């Protein structure tokens, strides 16, 4: 289980093909976490059923056009949602850091802190980071794959994504 330094917000699982979860912060801000099926990227049809990309964003923001205040309970809640999603042990989760405003490095640091604080502590998960790519326009891409340690497809998933990330055929 994640390290619960701050209590999580109540969340609801809406499900659907995108595995949608929702919660509302103390500042009345609504968040959604989605796990979008991304297995079509992989050539192996066995693995492709189990690969998802995690996306987080605001579904209701009373502070618009400003960004809302953040608090520690948000990251605790997202960690609990990730644990819920991983009840199916065969699943793998991809996360890519957004580089809008050229803040990919800052977002990666935040993601690393969140992972170390809330996911790694239970020793039930493992993370593979992929080589950093810098696009012709300067966009920086950081991506990682997270799996349960008892995922029977863990090695195959890692190898498949490693090949893609390295541009191997």
């Amino acid at each position, binding site marked *: 289980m994640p390290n619960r330094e701050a209590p999580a*917000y*109540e969340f*609801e699982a*809406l499900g659907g093909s*995108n595995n*949608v979860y*929702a*919660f*509302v*912060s*103390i500042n*009345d801000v*609504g968040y*959604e976490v*989605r796990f*979008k099926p*991304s297995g079509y*990227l992989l050539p192996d049809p066995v693995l492709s059923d189990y690969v998802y*990309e995690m*996306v*987080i*964003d*605001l*579904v*209701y923001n009373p502070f618009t056009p400003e960004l809302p205040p953040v608090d520690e309970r948000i990251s605790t809640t997202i960690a609990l949602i990730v644990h819920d999603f991983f009840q199916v042990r065969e699943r793998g989760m*991809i996360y*890519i850091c*957004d*580089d809008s405003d050229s803040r990919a490095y800052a977002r990666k640091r935040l993601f690393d802190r969140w992972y170390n604080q809330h996911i790694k502590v239970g020793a039930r998960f493992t993370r593979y980071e992929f*080589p950093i*790519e810098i*696009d012709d326009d300067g*966009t920086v*891409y950081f*991506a990682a794959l997270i799996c349960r340690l008892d995922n029977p497809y863990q090695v195959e998933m890692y190898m498949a994504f490693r090949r*893609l*990330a*390295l*541009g*191997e*055929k």
Partner: protein
Amino acid sequence: MDNATMTPEQQARRERALAFARELMRIKREGQEEIRNDYKNPEVREVIDRLRKRNAQQRSSRL
């Protein structure tokens, strides 16, 4: 290593790796757009409003 000093094979690998990264980013952007528009979905609106109401009740009960 910049593009000018890469072999054709290295350039091809880099292009394939970038295509993969761009596709991951495209999925992310698509998901963000879906979320930002999801409050228009009655089912989602109902859930968010219910959670907001519960938060407000909890806040008022602490006062």
